[in-house]
């Protein structure tokens, strides 16, 4: 595997970690006008993200068994970013609609969080196991590669949490932050798509 592919795989995993946590934190802000900021809302958001990630890990691992490539890793990242876009256009209306239809604060926010965040988070969850498949060359180094990937991905999450909650919300509107992150994901994904070629990872 070429060095640039290795770097791109780590970069995408790290950025994906950043992306997920930033969306999660902004999710609380997006939902507050319709659902408030009661403990149920945060409970619903965290549940949906955990559930979507867990299924994403499963799906990412499965998909990595068929012709894995950096190119496809880039596609996953771009797909995750694009599924955030409807949230910008219809998020508010959908939230108000669900809040009216399901007045119970627990199930209402669970349903709304699922509708908005499940798909992008599931796709983001696919990134890490898929990248592990690309990076691991043999059994002896598999643990090291997996460890490095966990590190990069979780470090990205920490950075995404800190930067979003301490700084980004002070600098920009929520939709500007979301748009910027979508742009970064598309840029990074496009890089991987054009640099990588199908079938690269296979020895």
């Amino acid at each position, binding site marked *: 595997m070429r060095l640039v592919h290795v770097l791109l795989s780590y970069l995408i995993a790290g950025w994906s970690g950043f992306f997920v946590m930033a969306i999660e934190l902004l999710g609380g802000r997006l939902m507050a006008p319709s659902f408030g900021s009661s403990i149920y809302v945060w409970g619903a958001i965290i549940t949906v993200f955990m559930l979507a990630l867990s299924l994403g890990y499963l799906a990412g691992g499965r998909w990595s068994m068929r012709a894995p490539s950096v190119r496809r890793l880039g596609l996953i990242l771009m797909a995750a970013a694009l599924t955030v876009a409807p949230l910008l256009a219809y998020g508010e209306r959908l939230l108000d609609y669900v809040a009216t239809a399901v007045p119970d604060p627990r199930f209402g926010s669970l349903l709304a969080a699922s509708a908005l965040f499940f798909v992008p988070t599931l796709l983001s969850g696919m990134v890490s196991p898929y990248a592990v498949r690309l990076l691991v060359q043999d059994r002896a180094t598999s643990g090291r590669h997996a460890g490095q990937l966990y590190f990069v991905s979780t470090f990205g999450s920490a950075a995404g949490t800190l930067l979003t909650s301490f700084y980004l*919300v002070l600098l920009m509107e929520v939709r500007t932050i979301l748009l910027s992150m979508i742009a970064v994901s598309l840029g990074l994904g496009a890089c991987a798509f054009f640099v990588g070629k199908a079938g690269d990872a296979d020895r």
Partner: protein
Amino acid sequence: MLIGNLRWRLAALLLLAAGCVGCGQNATAQGMKLVHAERSLYREVLVYEGRGVRCMCFTRECRVGRQSCLDLHDADRIVMTYPRMMLTALYVMPEPAKVLIIGLGGGTLPIALQHVVPDVRIDVVEIDPAVVKVAKRYFGFAENDSTRATVADGRVFVKRALREGRRYDLIMLDAFDHEYIPEHLLTQEFLSEVKALLSPGGVLAANTFSASRLYDHESATYAAVFPAFFNLKKDNRVIIASNGELPSKETLRANSKRFERVFRRFGFEAASMLPLFSTKADWDTNARVLTDQYSPANLLNLRQRE
């Protein structure tokens, strides 16, 4: 897995964020004795007694602000300054038929309003069921035909009330405290919703804590929705805004006289509050307006004013 670990920690952090400031010590400071601790979804709701008063607090030994206090020897007396300031909203709206109170605390405001305005109908919305329970058991708050308490988020309640076409003559916003501001209750959109929920000439009284850079942003946000408002500052800041014209100083004075007797029973002189009614814009009018898209109220509250 991967991001999961961090996430659990974040979850734990969020759950604890409001709760456990300085837990684990026995209460002796200021001679306040812990009488009751009510477990809640959000934080422990603590009741302390000492020096003739009983207070509801969210932190051990009432270190960071008392939510609400009751005089044990004179139940009518209003102990703290801010509910007195809030009640002066009656100088602007002397006979409210329907009142909405967002944030119950110990129930000082609804109890006082029941005394002052005989036929008033009061809706109280409180996010924390434990606060409602403690207010009833320790602070004399009671629900009855004219007073109803709902456990819900204030913003959610306001939106629902708008959909149902309800209107209020007086809305009292008392959901902030020293430590934490619910950011979705300090945006242009929220204030517009509140304004839409006011009857013509209806009045909003808001108890706020902004002293830092947030003061400018909060003021600019209120100014964006209410062209003019009274800005009362003593220990706290109370904003009194109207869905209509603000009354003149003479009208305020005349209205205040109607409450002389009952406010004296509460422990203060009605006229003593009049000098607090200021309409001077003593803030940076160029400060950015807070919106649902831009609402870092708590971060701004950490910043010094320039």
